[in-house]
């Protein structure tokens, strides 16, 4: 007989993360809005510019639509909606309380991280893939090719949502104050990294400042302009030489964040109430 808690993916947590909390229709509103946003953009574009556009313009619009699906903030908000319970609890940040009750159950903490990740990625990518299909159908209805619906776009969506979900699971596994700190530190590094990468070395060299700059640049490079790193597989594969490093960074980001999430959760002591 199978031992309780021995499964790598916990079905109760998976279903809870993926769809149970959306049983109340009002929690579906943001998801439905996101799902129809690209179709709305396609329709607006068509109604504004009309069908009298050149093939070049249509290609440009298709490219901007693809960029929409690579938008890290979109992936991030979707991951947040799936991974966190705060949203359905009408709170900004989730309490640790439910976690403490959860971990009195036969659940391995690593299995919790992996389940949350898989469910979050499935949910977020499903919403974006549906959004792409709806946008594609809308474009077809208008007789234009607004979006290249091919396996590379679907893989791009999957990879980007996986990256943002891994990052959000990492934040979710940290205690509230540490999660916010980690978020702002990474955000700061991304912002400063942008600045550092665009300017040349200062006139005066200082070993300590150089070290800090290099650390920030490394984090920035690994985590992207706005973490996690966004990737466009269509652009990557259409380039002359495939940038394996960029792809590698995106994939390793996922593993790094999941590893850190599992470590943080294992090290975390949970308290269920004031005595």
């Amino acid at each position, binding site marked *: 007989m199978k031992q309780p808690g021995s499964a790598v993916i916990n079905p109760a947590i998976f279903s809870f993360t993926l769809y149970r909390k959306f049983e109340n229709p009002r929690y579906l509103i943001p998801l439905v809005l996101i799902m129809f946003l690209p179709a709305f953009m396609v329709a607006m574009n068509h109604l504004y510019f009309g069908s009298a556009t050149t093939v070049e313009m249509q290609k440009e619009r298709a490219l901007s639509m693809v960029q929409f699906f690579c938008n890290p903030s979109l992936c991030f908000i979707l991951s947040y909606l799936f991974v966190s319970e705060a949203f359905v609890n009408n709170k900004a940040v989730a309490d640790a309380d439910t976690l*403490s009750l959860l971990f009195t159950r036969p659940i391995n903490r690593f299995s919790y991280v992996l389940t949350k990740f898989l469910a979050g990625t499935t949910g977020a990518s499903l919403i974006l893939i549906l959004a792409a299909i709806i946008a594609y159908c809308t474009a077809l209805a208008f007789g234009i090719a607004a979006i290249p619906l091919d396996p590379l776009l679907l893989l791009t969506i999957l990879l980007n949502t996986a990256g943002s979900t891994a990052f959000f699971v990492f934040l979710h596994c940290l205690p509230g104050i540490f999660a916010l700190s980690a978020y702002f530190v990474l955000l700061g590094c991304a912002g400063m990294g942008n600045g550092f990468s665009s300017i040349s070395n200062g006139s005066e060299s200082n070993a300590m400042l150089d070290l800090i700059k290099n650390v920030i640049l490394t984090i920035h490079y690994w985590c992207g302009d706005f973490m996690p790193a966004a990737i466009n597989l269509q652009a990557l594969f259409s380039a002359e030489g495939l940038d394996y490093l960029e792809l590698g960074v995106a994939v390793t980001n996922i593993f790094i964040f999941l590893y850190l999430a599992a470590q943080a959760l294992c090290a975390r002591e949970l308290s269920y*109430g004031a005595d």
Partner: protein
Amino acid sequence: MSIITVDSLSKSYKNSKVKAVDNASFQIEKGEVFGLIGPNGAGKTTIFSCLLALTNPSSGTIEIDGRSPQDIQVKAMLGFLPERPCYNRWMTVRQFLQYHHGLAGHPASEREAEIKRVLALVELDVDPKKRRIKELSRGMLQRIGLAQALIGKPQICFLDEPTSGMDPLGFILIRKLLLKLKEEGMTIVLNSHHLLEVERVCDRVAFIRRGKIEEVSSLADLNTIRQMLKVEWLPQTEDDPTRQEKLAQLADACQCPLLESFSCGAKFAVATNEKAAELLAGLQKENFSVYQSTFEKKELVELFLNERATDIGSEVEPDQTGQKEGQK
């Protein structure tokens, strides 16, 4: 046969000089109802957290059914009712119980029958499909918490303040339920401030103060041994300003804590007849003209008050022990 063994358990939190639990050792027998008693901040919740593997002990060992509390197989044996209702508020009662049944690793085929069973046990009269957790009163939340703790018939149940927020009917329900579970052979670890309830259902209790287990006693022993001795003496012709001090010193020396003193008498907690004799001899020696001494049965409430009285001024508040997560 011991199902839970706690040996030299200590827990210190970062940023706190005080030990939340200090070298605590006790054993809990299979099928026993074991109570933890102590003032706020005594370390009861920390002991619970360690037993439930939510917190790692600084030192010492815990074994549940011969295994570490971290062991998944151990967790599958446990049910837990937290002191504060920390449930998924947006869920309906049914979803919440389904979720916990699933988390406990029980087969989905048994789910609905099990939900019906636990709802009947806690006598919760709401529509489980429609009522959301956030719509329930405090007492109802407590019943739901109890239902989730009992789902899947755990072998060991940790109940932290089970009567908290309950009305008198709820109190009766909890008492009946605990006695029923005890009859069925479930091991129950109870943390409660409602000492009358503890007295009625517990087989043994551990008195905790400032993180230390002061004593583990069976309720049967407490009823016969732990008594209160009321001593009365003749008024003294001359006022002695040091009289109170002498009484306190004598109480300390005889290990009979002074519970109360009045103009011509005092009440002491005495553990044995020998201690009572020693105390009376000491009083005579200090020129108290004792003319009467009577034993009164000491209830758990008074024992607790005694622990509390000696604790005033030195009590460790929860935030000082760093029990809140943000302070760790």
